[in-house]
C-alpha cells in the first residue's frame, strides 16, 4: 500500500499543493492530469527521486522520509520504477542494464548462471527475444524495445510495487496497445501494486481498478473508471473532452 500524505512541492512555482492519495495493495491505479500538473513529480516523491517540501509517503505503513536510516533503501527495494524514456544506461548492454535491477547485495552473491537465467526470464516476460537483444546497447534498440528493456529492469528485482511514468509516451498506437497489455499482464502475473501515470486516459480507464486526476497541484478526482466517466465535475469533463479530441487527432494523423 502506498499513501501520499499532504505532499507539497514547489520549483519556481507550486507544483503539488497538499496531495493526499492512497493506493491499496494489489490495486492497479492510474493517475491522469494535464501536462505540468505534477503527476511525474508525485510519482518521483514515492522513492525520493524528488524530495517533497512538506508531507510524507508511506509504503506498507513505513514512512519513506521520517523513518530510520534504512527506510528509504527498503522502500526502493520494494519498488520497481519504469521511467518515461526508459532511462537505460548508455554504456551498458541490455544484459547489464537488466541485471542492474537486481539489488546489489543479492547480485554480488548470485551465481553467474542464475543471473543469466533471471535476466533471460525478465526479457522474455516483456515479449523480447533474449538472443536478439541481450548483447545490444540501448542506442541499437527501437523506442518500443527500450521501453520493454526498462520494464524488464524494473521487474527483475521482484518488486511489490510498480511505478509507471508515462509508459506509452512516444509510442505508436500498436506499441501503445502492446505496452498496455504488458502492464496488465505483468501486474496480474507478478501480483504487484501498480501506479500508472499516463496521458492516455482511454487505456488507463480500461485496465485500472481506480483512477485519479490531478489539476493545478491538487487531487481533483479519485474513484473508479465508471465514476470518472460519469463525473459531473466540469474540469474532469473538460479534461476528458480534450483528451478525446487529442486522441481523435492522433488517429487521424496516423491514418493519413
Amino acid at each position: 500500500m502506498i499513501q501520499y500524505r499532504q505532499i507539497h512541492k514547489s520549483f519556481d512555482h507550486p507544483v503539488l499543493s497538499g496531495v493526499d492519495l492512497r493506493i491499496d495493495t494489489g490495486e492497479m491505479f492510474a493517475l491522469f492530469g494535464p501536462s505540468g500538473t505534477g503527476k511525474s513529480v508525485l510519482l518521483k516523491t514515492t522513492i525520493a527521486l524528488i524530495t517533497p517540501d512538506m508531507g510524507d509517503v508511506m509504503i506498507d505503513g513505513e514512512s519513506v522520509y521520517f523513518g530510520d536510516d534504512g527506510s528509504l533503501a527498503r522502500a526502493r527495494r520494494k519498488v520497481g520504477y519504469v521511467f518515461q524514456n526508459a532511462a537505460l544506461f548508455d554504456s551498458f548492454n541490455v544484459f547489464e542494464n537488466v541485471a542492474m535491477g537486481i539489488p546489489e547485495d543479492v547480485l554480488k552473491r548470485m551465481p553467474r548462471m542464475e543471473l543469466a537465467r533471471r535476466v533471460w526470464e525478465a526479457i522474455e516476460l516483456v515479449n523480447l527475444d533474449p538472443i536478439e537483444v541481450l548483447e545490444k546497447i540501448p542506442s541499437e534498440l527501437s523506442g518500443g524495445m527500450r521501453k520493454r528493456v526498462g520494464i524488464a529492469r524494473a521487474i527483475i528485482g521482484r518488486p511489490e510495487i510498480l511505478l509507471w511514468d508515462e509508459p506509452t509516451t512516444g509510442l505508436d498506437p500498436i506499441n501503445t496497445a502492446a505496452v498496455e497489455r504488458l502492464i496488465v499482464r505483468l501486474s496480474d502475473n507478478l501480483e504487484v501494486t501498480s501506479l500508472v501515470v499516463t496521458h492516455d486516459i482511454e487505456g488507463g480507464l480500461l485496465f485500472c481498478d481506480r483512477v485519479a486526476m490531478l489539476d493545478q497541484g491538487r487531487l481533483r478526482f479519485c474513484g473508479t473508471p465508471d465514476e470518472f466517466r460519469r463525473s459531473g465535475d466540469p474540469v474532469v469533463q473538460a479534461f476528458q473532452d480534450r483528451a478525446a479530441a487529442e486522441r481523435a487527432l492522433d488517429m487521424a494523423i496516423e491514418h493519413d
Partner: protein
Amino acid sequence: MGRGTELVFDHAGALGLLTWAMIMSVVRLKVPSREFFRQIYVMGVESLPIVFVTGALAGIVTSQQGGYQMTGAIPQYILGSLVAQTVVLEMGPVLTAIVLVGRVGARITAELGTMKVSEQIDAYHSLGRDPVVLLGTPRVLAGIVVMPILVGFANLIGILAGMVAARLDSGLGFESFLYGANLFWHSWDLFYSFTKALVFGVSIPLISVHMGFRTQGGAEGVGRTTTDAVMFMTLTILILDAMFPPLLLN
C-alpha cells in the same frame, strides 16, 4: 545575501558534501574497479598525445623567447635553467591542467549531465545504487592517479623540446643546456610540480562531476552547464596556481 553570494555558498556546500561522499566510498572500499580503470584509460592514455604536443610547444616557446632575451652579458647556459624551471614549475602542470579541463572535464560534465537529464541518474537511485560511488568517485580517483603522470610526461617532453630548440635557435649545446638546468635545480621543484598536478587532478574531475550532477533542462541545459563547468574549472586552476608560490615557494 545577494544572488551571487548565495550561489557561491550553494556550490561550496554541494562540493563539500560530494567530496565527503566520495571519501566515504573510498574508505568503505566501494569504488568499482572496472569504471576506475576505464577512466584511467580515458583520462590518461587518451590524453597523452595532446599532452605531448602541449608540453613540447611550451618547451620550444620558452626556449625561443628565453634565447631572444639572452643576448647580453648573461651566460647562455642559463637558458637551460630558465626552460627547466619554467616548464617544471609552471608550464607543465598548468598547461596540462588547462588541456584536461577541455578534454576531460568538459567530457565528464556533458556525460553526467546527459545522464541526469535523461533520468539515468534517477534510475541509479531507484535501483538502490549510489551514482556518486559508481560514477563520481572513479573519475576523481582516476584524475588523482593520471594527472601527476601526465604532468611528468609534459615536464620531460617540454625540457627535451626546449633543449632541442635551444640548440637550433640559439646554438646552445645539449651539455651546456643540461649544465644550466642542473645549476639552479632543486628537488623541491619537482615536488612542487607534482603537488600542483595532484591538486589540479582532484579539482578538475571533482568540479566536472559536481556540475554534471547539477544539470537541468534537457540538451540546452547540458550545453549551458558544460560551458559553466569549463569556466569554473579554468578559473579554479588559475586561482589555485596563484596560491602555490606564496604557500610552497617562500
